[in-house]
């Protein structure tokens, strides 16, 4: 029964992915039901009333390393969670592929990098990734307190793996959150996400 339900979930996500545009600006963000590294289940609707940031992650990806080795991602996580934002790091790498981690490995990474997301969601089936059409790590999404998608794109305007670009980059996530939390429309709700291809399970597409 449980198996049948997860098969249905995968099928549903696949349908969303094939029809595309599962996550468009101004529309309700797709719900999800994914366990974090501690075993706790997270659903989008649990966070009604809060801003939610989704950060697609793969610790082996050089574009992700740029933001963790520079401390940029950790700074963003601390800054925005301190202001009440829910920050979910999502790992959609399939077992055996780059970035896939066990729950313990996910926690060890958070500790080692001094990262501060609200939780690390483990999505090895790719269900959540495909529902959002997350293409790369780091692909960033922002959902407003009503559950509407208000940002879908890159973390910043420097699509490189070069650490020297971090201090001079314009951070799109901070810009969008700043505007949205001040009650203003997000002036740049999308950008081309840059990074490494999300390492989805090949059997489910």
């Amino acid at each position: 029964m449980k198996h049948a339900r997860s098969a249905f979930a995968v099928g549903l996500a696949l349908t969303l992915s094939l029809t595309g545009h599962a996550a468009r600006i101004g529309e309700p963000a797709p719900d999800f039901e994914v366990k974090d590294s501690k075993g706790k289940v997270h659903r989008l609707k649990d966070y009604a009333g809060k801003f939610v940031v989704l950060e697609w992650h793969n610790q082996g990806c050089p574009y992700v390393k740029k933001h963790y080795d520079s401390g940029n991602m950790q700074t963003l996580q601390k800054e925005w969670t301190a202001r009440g934002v829910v920050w979910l790091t999502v790992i959609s790498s399939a077992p055996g592929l780059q970035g896939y981690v066990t729950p313990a490995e996910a926690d060890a990474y958070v500790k080692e990098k001094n990262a501060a997301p609200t939780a690390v969601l483990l999505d090895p089936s790719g269900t959540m990734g495909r529902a959002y059409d997350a293409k790369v790590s780091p692909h960033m999404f922002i959902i407003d307190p009503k559950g509407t998608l208000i940002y879908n794109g890159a973390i910043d305007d420097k699509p490189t793996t070069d650490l020297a670009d971090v201090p001079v980059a314009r951070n799109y996530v901070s810009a969008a959150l700043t505007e949205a939390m001040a009650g203003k429309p997000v002036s740049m709700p999308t950008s081309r996400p840059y990074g490494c291809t999300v390492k989805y399970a090949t059997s489910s597409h």
Partner: protein
Amino acid sequence: MPDVGSARPAPEVRLDRDPLRQGREPALLRGRIRGAMLVHHMVSAPPTGIVVRLGAVCRPTLCAALALWGAEVGLAQDAAPRRATAPHAVVELIVDRNPATATREFWLGLRFELEQGWHVYWQNPGDSGGPPTVLWQPAPGLRFGDFQWPAPERLPLGPLVNYGYTNEVVLPVKVELTGSALPRRIAAQAKWIVCHDICVPGQARLSIPLPVDRADEARIPAWKRQIDAALAQVPQPAPPAWRASARASGRDFLLDVEMDRPAERATFFPLDPSQIDDSAPQEVEVAGRRLRLRLRQSDQLTSPPPALRGVLRFPSGPAVVVAAPVTATPARPSGRLPR
């Protein structure tokens, strides 16, 4: 951690810190250490990245000694190799003639030989990745043009699609002679990301002496063939008689091209990112002289672009650049495209 001064700028091999290599010693770095030229860089600006990596091959005292030696023998910064071996790619500079014999211009090429299954990217990389870049060392008497990008391939990876090159590619650059004397050497720093199912960033300092080395002179005819072949793959402007237009249709764009000859099937490669969904299949219709492509709009698109600009690649013959004005359809207040 060995460290010989970490706070100064790191112009060189910063990316070699990448733990992706997982203990594999980068061949490029090895080559440079042997050539001692890298060590010279350490004297002028110790790059943190190098120092970290060098820890594996040279202790700080030894590094310092090598550095002093490098400084004493006065190795020029521009004595970088013409050809470098990096993880999953060999990268080199080639020319289409001996620049010493050129009167007004010549072509340089940045050439990648890629390991089987690995790719580098076109100017618009598609769903992920990024294009190679090059920084030319300023050379009095020379003016460097931009990369001329040969038409790419569609490279599916899982559910996503990239635009790039496999096996080998030459990115030609036109060099104009603006003065009477040639510099002794052309030097460049190239950076790229090379991907298979995973990605590895790379960079190399490369240089080519003017005139080219004796040993390389015999290679020039082959280099010229490679550069000419790459230039033949560079998309040409559409013939003036062609008419291209586009309009939104639901969540797709319909791109119509009226040609001055019987139309052929073609693949569209967008020049601007985030206009079309790179991974969506392209539906192609050919009727008489008209080619129609149905292209899925990108999720990242919030208002209609003024034009769809891109490259049409045909089964044979040169690829063509089209700029199709998008028929005005006012965006809805939400910023979404009309369906």
